[in-house]
């Protein structure tokens, strides 16, 4: 699989007043800190009906009957619908990944179940009424009779002969199988002096945005408007059009203020389609907002891979190849793109290292759990986790310093084509590690560690050097003829100068906390010679600006920011032609300095953008053939992905008596290219670290063997709090990407992709004197304690999977991920 790339973007001078690079405080914040922002659930329209959804308590069952009579009779209830009522939907919820030549099983997944349920929480009926509390009462009166079917929740068991088949039409629980090879992998392992192998369970987690999903639909004058807590309003409109059989001109989707996404709102959920269908059917506005329990059960989960990874190396430490087999638990139905997620692991399976051969074999599996899909990092955290922990294992096997092993194998020349066709754009992996070590002072820590060990205090340090693929992405690589995503991955922008010189910029991206209104204003301001406070950035509304591809995959800046820069440069170019015409100079002699368009060498002859706008909108004297107006658009489709990188170090302390892990220090140096706004970058890094710390230490979505969700609230699903983490020591290097003119790479997922192996490695380093060499996340006190006990010859160690399978059944490798039952939970 090859991708185009490495083409050098022509870097232009922004010509403005230097707002790019400044740590400006955010334009978004005044409304947010005063409680005046408008999230979806804050809106009510006249006559709004509330929806309550009846959900399956069964993980796998046939629906024998649904009796809605009692619910309909309750006061205030206007309607009750079941799957049969929605028979006029034009299509089920789509899954957009169709790789050429690969069979992918995509069962029909309807907003309300038809005949059968495959996971706990699957919507079966919807109750609509005027009272928010009343519809919940009524939903409890909907009587559904189920015929239970055998349940399978372990993806490896699901692949075995005789396992319950979830979708009979396929005769297997296998969703798909595909391979991404590069180089001679057989030779790589044949020629290796040493091969290390690990089995790593990268357990299921939740996105857990603090704002639950919410959707409000209105049908008025033959048109549909949906306000939704989504990351992808433009994509949502396309899918609503397909499912509802409505043309796009009659659909408007708005993402108002959105309270975090982390991938969990990179989705078009059945409930969004359902409220739209109900609003059209009833001719009234319909609103649904998830409870946290609904959110935990039916907002897509992430990770849930079982990874078998092998690295081969020469005795001197030179790596010869890496092979990973990924078993991806897809859940029982797909949503928009779940099965493609482990492919993102394959993209970065080479890590920062010069592997001459790589191969990733992926098997997707149906289980009676909810859908997995993209959650912050989406496949790359899993890859970093397996690569970095296996590199540590290799270092031990070779009796080599793990950092020396890394440096020996770092990729040093860029652009660099990897064996599987990806082209790393730019990098300096030694530089981030050097700076990280400078901040950490490893020698001092090793002395401290030795002293503490003598007192029975176990501290350790772990490292992660990572590279990630982001800035999704070149449509040629990702699209139908590439990986098979049924869409384009360009981004759009429109920059409009108003008649008096202020600016509105439209972006096709759709932020939910990232700060685009500020960062993009900085980019535009420099290119037009204005201040960011007169640049209003509009996003998240399909009735404004051009069609866009929205926000995920750390793409907003590297693709959307570049689009907005290019649109602004088109405006600048037109402005220069107007100025040249008015000042009787050549356009190439006009320069933009401190907000003035002046003639090179004659700074007294100048115009401002407001002067130019006046000429453009009162077009009495424009250059010959020029159209009026000062309003330009750009659709930017990158030539390559962008490849941020960095080095993270974690120092943790483990209480050997209780198994409790505390992070003592965390030092990281990330490189996402030149900063547009360092304040925003730091914020993404901090949040990204804690997201991964959550997975490493606390968070786990747990299903029991019957497919019941054990971690259905924040009581059971432990998000890290302020008290669980220290302040982090962060720094950056800036290696520009040649892919775009801004040189930027993206940072939204970087720290989440980097962090978890550093945390786990720090715990292993701490516990080395006790003989613990391997342990899978989450490192809850119980699991750590069990690992210590097992290393001391007591007990079998933590359970291998949620279903309690033992290590021996899988031929060794690491201890597995999950609690064995509800009593353990996922929390510390």
């Amino acid at each position: 699989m090859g991708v185009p790339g490495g083409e050098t973007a022509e870097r232009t001078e922004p010509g403005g007043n230097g707002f790019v690079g400044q740590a400006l405080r955010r334009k978004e914040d005044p409304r947010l800190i005063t409680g005046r922002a408008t999230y979806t659930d804050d809106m009510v329209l006249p006559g709004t009906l509330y929806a309550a959804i009846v959900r399956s308590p069964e993980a796998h069952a046939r629906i024998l009957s649904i009796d809605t009579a009692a619910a309909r009779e309750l006061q205030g209830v206007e309607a009750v619908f079941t799957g049969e009522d929605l028979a006029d939907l034009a299509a089920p919820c789509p899954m957009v990944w169709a790789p050429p030549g690969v069979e992918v099983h995509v069962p029909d997944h309807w907003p309300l179940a038809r005949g059968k349920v495959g996971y706990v929480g699957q919507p079966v009926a919807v109750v609509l009424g005027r009272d928010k509390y009343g519809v919940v009462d009524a939903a409890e009166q909907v009587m559904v009779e189920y015929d239970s079917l055998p349940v399978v929740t372990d993806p490896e068991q699901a692949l075995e002969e005789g396992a319950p088949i979830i979708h009979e039409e396929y005769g297997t629980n296998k969703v798909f199988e595909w391979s991404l090879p590069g180089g001679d992998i057989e030779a790589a392992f044949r020629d290796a002096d040493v091969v290390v192998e690990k089995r790593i369970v990268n357990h299921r987690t939740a996105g857990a945005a603090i704002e639950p999903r919410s959707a409000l639909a209105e049908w008025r004058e033959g048109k549909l408007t949906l306000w939704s807590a989504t990351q992808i309003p433009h994509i949502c409109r396309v899918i609503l059009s397909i499912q509802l059989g409505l043309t796009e001109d009659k659909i408007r989707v708005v993402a108002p203020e959105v309270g975090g996404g982390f991938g969990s709102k990179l989705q078009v959920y059945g409930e969004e389609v359902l409220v739209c269908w109900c609003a059209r059917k009833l001719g009234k506005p319909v609103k649904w907002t998830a409870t946290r329990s609904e959110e935990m059960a039916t907002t897509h989960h992430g990770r849930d891979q079982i990874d078998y990874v092998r690295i081969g190396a020469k005795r001197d430490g030179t790596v010869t190849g890496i092979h990973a087999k990924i078993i991806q638990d897809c859940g029982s139905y797909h949503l928009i793109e779940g099965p493609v997620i482990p492919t993102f692991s394959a993209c970065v399976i080479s890590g920062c290292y010069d592997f001459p051969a790589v191969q990733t074999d992926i098997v997707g599996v149906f289980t009676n759990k909810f859908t997995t899909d993209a959650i912050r990092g989406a496949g790359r955290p899993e890859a970093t986790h397996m690569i970095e922990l296996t590199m540590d294992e290799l270092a031990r096997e070779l009796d080599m310093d793990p950092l020396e092993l890394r440096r020996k194998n770092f990729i040093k020349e860029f652009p660099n084509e990897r064996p599987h066709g990806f082209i790393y754009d730019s990098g300096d992996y030694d530089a981030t590690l050097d700076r990280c070590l400078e901040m950490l002072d490893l020698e001092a820590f090793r002395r401290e560690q030795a002293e503490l060990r003598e007192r029975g205090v176990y501290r350790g340090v772990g490292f992660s050097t990572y590279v990630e693929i982001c800035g999704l992405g070149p449509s040629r690589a990702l699209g139908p003829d590439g990986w098979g995503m049924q869409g384009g991955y360009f981004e759009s922008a429109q920059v409009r100068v108003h008649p008096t010189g202020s600016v509105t910029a439209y972006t096709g991206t759709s932020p939910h906390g990232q700060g685009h209104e500020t960062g993009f204003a900085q980019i535009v301001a420099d290119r037009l010679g204005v201040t960011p406070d007169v640049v209003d950035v509009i996003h998240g509304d399909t009735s404004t600006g051009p069609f866009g591809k929205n926000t995920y995959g750390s793409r907003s800046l590297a693709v959307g920011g570049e689009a907005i820069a290019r649109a602004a440069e088109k405006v600048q170019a037109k402005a220069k032609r107007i100025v040249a015409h008015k000042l009787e100079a050549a356009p190439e002699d006009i320069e933009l300095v401190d907000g003035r368009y002046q003639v090179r060498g004659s700074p007294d002859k100048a115009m401002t953008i407001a002067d130019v706008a006046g000429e453009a909108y009162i077009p009495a004297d424009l250059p010959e053939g020029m159209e009026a107006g000062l309003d330009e658009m750009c659709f930017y489709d990158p030539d390559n992905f962008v490849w941020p990188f960095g080095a993270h170090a974690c120092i943790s302390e483990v209480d050997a008596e209780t198994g409790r892990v505390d992070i003592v220090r965390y030092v990281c140096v990330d490189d996402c290219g030149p900063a547009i706004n360092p304040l925003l970058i730091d914020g993404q890094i901090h949040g990204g670290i804690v997201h991964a710390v959550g997975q490493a230490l606390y968070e786990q979505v747990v299903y029991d063997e019957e497919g019941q969700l054990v971690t259905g609230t924040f009581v059971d699903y432990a998000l890290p709090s302020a008290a669980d983490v220290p302040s982090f020591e962060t720094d950056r290097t800036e290696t520009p990407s040649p892919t775009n003119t801004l040189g930027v790479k993206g940072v939204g997922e970087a720290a989440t992709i980097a962090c978890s192996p550093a945390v786990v490695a720090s715990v292993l380093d701490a516990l080395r004197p006790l003989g613990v060499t391997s342990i899978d996340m989450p490192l809850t006190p119980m699991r750590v304690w069990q690992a210590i006990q097992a290393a001391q010859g007591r007990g079998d160690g933590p359970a291998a999977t949620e279903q309690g399978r033992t290590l021996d059944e899988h031929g060794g490798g690491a201890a597995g991920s999950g609690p064995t039952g509800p009593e353990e939970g996922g929390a510390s």
Partner: protein
Amino acid sequence: MSASVRLEVTVNGERHVSEVEPRLLLVHYLRDELGLTGTHVGCDTSNCGACTVHLNGDAVKSCTVLAVQADGAEVTTIEGIGQEGALHPLQEAFWEHHGLQCGYCTPGMIMAAADLLARNPEPGEHEIRDALAGNLCRCTGYQNIVKAVQAAAAQSRGGQGQPAREEVTV
């Protein structure tokens, strides 16, 4: 549904008399009856703290308080502690130190922090982290929230302590 009961409550200094269902949660009363949508619901189980308001001066999680329990009480919400042009020092500090991203947890976080500073005007980092452990944020990693609370505390003490960042304001 049971019969409505009379509720008299002062919210952000304004007196309201309402008839409410006894089971109505305070957070829904504030949001749906009074239109004070700055107070958010994140978890329904009093874990996340997005719904934090002040009830007679103490921070409470309004998703776990019945509206009728506020009868005769004074309630302060995020809308009541400051507004654009007259920001509370905590609001100013969250803005200045990038203590928020998506903003959904922010009102509750600010109300919890205000409660902390009322009881402890000079909290150390650990005290701040412990005091905010009942308010979850998925975006910020808490670091800049802690910084903002420290800055607001310093500001309230008369500009002593950690200086505010000197950077251009948009």
